[in-house]
């Protein structure tokens, strides 16, 4: 990567103040995404995946840090300047039922962004909507129908088409296949990968499903309780996971292969509360490899192999 990254996140933090407590949802998140690259964000509930996705597009305001997109720090832009950049960055949501208005036709849903941005005439906007439907392999007559007339998988295709009408170069896809049945999930995963390659999209792909992430992403970021545990290319991460949390996460995934080894490490306990995260390494309270030193300081991400980073003080895991 000699080219400057398209997206560069530095020291991103998000804290929420509640009565008597500060919830530290994200702390010190830094990563880059090169142009045309797909980066996965994985982790369990409460790890901060969605908060990162939304902060990056400034759908929520981060508490600290910078989000540099194509040279400009988005967190410092005015509303108007931000709006001008919005067409370049789009969001695909998890729930294909909640994310499409039941009162708008698919045509209205697909052209709304263009209308707000003042792009094209009505006829041109509809033409772009039709093209987007074609890209997601839905029939052109879908344009006059309503969301309830479509299945979950088709609705998710509509959600993808909506993100495409503005011809973005960056997409945040937040659990785009998690609500779908297995047989439909594979169709949508194939479609997303296809579109990404054909259109040269840059993508931040959020998922709790490591197998899907491996298939679609070039690099993967593993999160736990608002902090990055490990970053690596997907091939590296899946063949040589270096962080004890990544290792545990992978061994927890049940395999349908009857010959797969059924011996695995079961993590004890729950994710701690973000109101009171453990000192030092946030994973130490559940880590099977914990040492006394883990409580002393927050382990910094360090490069353990070219392009492979982990936030763990141990070398022997």
């Amino acid at each position, binding site marked *: 990567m000699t080219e400057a990254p398209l997206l560069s996140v530095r020291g991103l933090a998000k804290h929420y103040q509640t009565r008597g407590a500060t919830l530290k949802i994200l702390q010190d998140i830094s990563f880059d995404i090169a142009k045309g690259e797909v980066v996965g964000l994985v982790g369990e509930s409460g790890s901060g995946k969605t908060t990162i996705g939304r902060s990056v597009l400034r759908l929520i305001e981060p508490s600290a840090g910078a989000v540099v997109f194509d040279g400009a720090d988005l967190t410092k832009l005015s509303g108007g300047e931000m709006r001008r950049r919005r067409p370049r960055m789009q969001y695909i949501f998890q729930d294909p039922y909640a994310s499409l208005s039941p009162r708008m036709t698919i045509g209205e849903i697909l052209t709304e962004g263009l209308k707000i941005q003042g792009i094209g005439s009505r006829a041109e906007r509809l033409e772009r909507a039709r093209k987007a439907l074609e890209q997601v392999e839905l029939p052109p007559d879908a344009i006059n129908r309503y969301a309830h007339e479509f299945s979950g998988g088709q609705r998710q295709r509509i959600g993808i088409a909506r993100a495409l009408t503005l011809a973005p170069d960056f997409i945040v896809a937040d659990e785009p296949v998690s609500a779908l049945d297995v047989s439909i999930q594979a169709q949508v995963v194939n479609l997303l990968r296809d579109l990404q390659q054909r259109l040269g999209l840059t993508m931040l792909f959020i998922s709790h499903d490591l*197998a899907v992430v491996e298939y679609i992403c070039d690099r993967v970021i593993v999160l736990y309780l608002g902090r990055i545990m490990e970053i690596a290319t997907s091939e590296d991460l899946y063949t040589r996971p270096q962080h004890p949390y990544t290792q545990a996460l992978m061994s927890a995934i049940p395999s349908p292969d009857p010959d797969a080894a059924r011996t695995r490490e079961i993590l004890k306990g729950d994710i701690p509360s973000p109101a009171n995260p453990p000192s030092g390494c946030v994973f130490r309270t559940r880590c099977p490899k914990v040492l006394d030193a883990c409580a002393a300081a927050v382990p910094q991400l360090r490069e353990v192999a070219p392009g492979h980073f982990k936030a763990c003080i141990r070398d022997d895991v």
Partner: protein
Amino acid sequence: MTSEPILEISNLRTVFRVRGREIAAVNGIDLVIRPGETVALVGESGSGKSVTSLSVMRLLARRIGVIDNGSIRFRGKDGKTKDLVTLGEEEMRQIRGNDIGMVFQEPMTSLNPVYTIGDQISESLRVHRRLGRREGVEAAVGLLDKVGIPDARRRAGQYPHELSGGMRQRATIAMALACDPTLLIADEPTTALDVTIQAQILDLMQALQRERGMGMLFVTHNLGVVAEIANRVAVMYAGRIVETGPVAEVFKAPRHPYTMGLLKSMPRLGTASEMKRTGAKLPAIPGMVPSLADLPAGCAFAPRCAFARDACRQAMPALSPVNDHHGSRCIRWQEISA
């Protein structure tokens, strides 16, 4: 396992009456569960797996969902076998929570937010075993301890919102097991949980089942979970069982195109980099699950099936035996698995 079955479902048909029409959500199902055995019902949305489990518990929405044919023979703790389909509501109430325990997907909705955990776990003991309040709570503390909840006495006095998702599911398992049921019905019990918590809960359920020799009907859409927990599996599609047999055999050598497709379309950990290098795609099943209100003639899977031919569209194939304990509802299973 040659012992007498505790549950024997024969030719079960459950219909929903919607706007004057009758839609069969479950259409002629046979299923046997023996003590100590776990049978998984696996399928996608609308396949009828949850309706099957609700039929066994007789918890279908009154006047809308009706068991219209078949029998559900269940052997209770007293050793007597009854047909749950014809049982009166009062007798059914004696069985629920006593002979049959139930665990649902969403622990937050299956627990009552205004009662303490201890109260809810002991409710079935108070109803079925006539325990007093104090004895009930004592028993609840013991059960919470049993399902691995630390500091059980304090937790028994807490409300559901004070527990994490995993803890809540442990509490509902304690609730289901309070009266020592002979059959546990678990409907997507780990689907709402994170994988590391799912692993804990599956481990717990397996240990408890082994210890008590219960039969278990485990409903899930997750094939990995099936392989983890079940002895036998029944794959459902559009209200029917399309393949059934021992899990290891069915997953290693599936004999129905739908099972084959499901297994192949699941991305597997550690295989993607190779697929990316070769440009291979995930083998998806084309099309979508048909509407139950508008099923095609013949085999319901035929419109999505790469092996379908005219005969498939004419008559619903019978569940034909692959061997003594493995069956496939496909007329071409022999050719396609060769």
